[in-house]
């Protein structure tokens, strides 16, 4: 299955080639946490993770066509 990933701001350095958006080919049923591990994002790095624009449990299995968004904690002003 193919999952679409978006990585923003200072976390882009963990994306392949620093790309903002890319696709990941994963085994069907791969959990969200495993998909993130594929990015090489250390556990110590603070991040907000969305699945299809909503908060999601890291153990949730992904489905073909899902959109995973990762960005650092920030706030407006």
């Amino acid at each position, binding site marked *: 299955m193919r999952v679409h990933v978006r990585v*923003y701001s*200072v976390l882009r350095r963990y994306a392949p080639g620093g790309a903002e958006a890319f696709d990941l080919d994963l085994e069907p049923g791969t959990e969200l946490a495993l998909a993130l591990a594929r990015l090489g994002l250390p556990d110590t790095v603070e991040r907000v993770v*969305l699945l299809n624009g909503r908060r999601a449990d890291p153990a949730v299995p992904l489905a073909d066509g899902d959109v995973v968004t990762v960005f650092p904690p920030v706030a407006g002003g």
Partner: protein
Amino acid sequence: MHGWAGTVLRVDLGRGVVTPEPLDPAAAREFIGGRGLGIHHLLREVDPHCDPLGPANLMVMATGPLTGTRTPTGARYTVTTRSPLTGAITCSNAGGRFPAELKKAGIDAILVSGRSPEPVYLWIDDGRAELRPAGHLWGRTVPETDAAVRAETHERARVACIGPAGERLVRFASIMNDRHRAAGRSGVGAVMGSKNLKAVAVRGTRPVPVADAGAFDEVHRRVLGRFLEASREQPPALRVHGTAVTVMATQSYGVLPTKNWQQGTFEGWRGIHGETLTERFLVRQSACFSCPIACGRRTRVDVPGYEGEGEGPEYETVYAMGSNCMIDDLAAITKANYLCNELGLDTITMGATLACAMELADRGHLPEADVGRPLRWGDGRALVELTRMTGLREGFGDTLAEGSLRLATRYGHPELAMVSKGQEFAGYEPRGSQGMGLAYATSPIGASHMRGDPAYFELLGVPTTVDPLSYEDKAPLVKDWQDLFAVIDSAGLCVFFTVRYLVEPRLDCPPTGILAYLNAVTGAGYTLEELVRAGERIVNAERLFLVRAGFRRKDDSLPPRLLREPLPDGPARGMVCHLDEMLDAYYRVRGWTPDGVPTPDKLAELGLGGEGTAP
């Protein structure tokens, strides 16, 4: 005293007299400073029904006990007064260097009353204060005024001033300090203009005395160490791309207000994103006094027709002037931001009022002849030109200068004004961020992201995560967060650093880091409970002022669009804001009546028992 300078400056503009008074130590302890000290004075000294632009209104400019110290982000002051935009109070705050300079001059707060018969400015030189003529400065822009006042006083003086918008009583005129920082909201600049006070210049050279330097260094090492460690792991996003980096978050959740709040996502979002700002216009980062983050943007635009140099834009500006107007041209937005800074205008209300005008025009309610030009979604040139005209009250700008509620009412459709208590929203859509809706509706100054901003825990993961679409659980969280922000604003700190490094990462947000700094600086020996209670006291004191001015539950409202029209797009599609359900629970946890009035028991508990709810 330590932390507090111990002196407030009374400026009676009607008589042209400046009088230093000792700071009341009991009031300082109970209301901390800054925003708290402002409402303390407003409650006692201002008729809640006074004309906001008349001499009876009082304008308080107050620092907090941590302002001017090495406490991270100890840079801020708050302007408290009755707002000409809303009729409620306002307590707009700003950082930069002016507030710390004021404290170093030995002044905690300036209380400005009356109206000067002629334009004047206030010059404070290490505690010696005088009023000087300012007729020759009237009509000057903010940078011109800043330069002229420094030339007449001291080249290193720090200046807070109004521009032409404040002089012309634009209802959302700002007070600018250090040229680029804005006490932006609710028309504080119009109040200053109504008093014929063009500027306050200050030179302060005395370090703020700290009660326990050893304790300060200990907490400082610990807190900064955590920040530096996290920064080594990943640089702060706010430093790298500025606050406009938030666009990618709100767009991802579908809560980026677009087309005057008709949509929650913006096709052209990448054009207004912080990363785009970095690539196109960033010259360098800038930081307020004692700030390790440096989220400020020094920028330059070379695009023909939009040339300029200055600071900004911030996230709230790119939402209000960008997605909300369907404008993805960052050059036009940045230029309009420069104009706001130079003329002294709030960028949020400016952009949101223009978006309202665009919808009125789009629906055929606003004739093109009235505007004097075509007004279509996405028109960056109209944004720049109408911003300039608003700051000068020229042509249709004179109508825009009244804000979106008066504009929409004039053209027969007040429901198209996206406001709460008459003030325009910040850039977070309550249908996809329910707690934000409750916070907007109950904010004492009308819609604001600075009076307890649930976007942090609903959208941004700070201090922890909560489902943004749930509403049953939001009332106590919003209450605690509002009380926390009252402490932050009153201490003289900025929320950006504080909510991540000076607050426990739990939803009840105990401000243990603020407590440690506050006690080291002041030696006042606050307990955690006492500090939390002070935040609640300040929020209730502000509510008292509103109640006396006639505000009730009916005013804790949102526009019908957010309550009844399901969001048509994005991840929060189909949602409305469940405000009524949240309000009932909110008043209960606040100890207020179902109509939103603090009960006598609650007031007594907070030491406000002597304060009646009648005007």
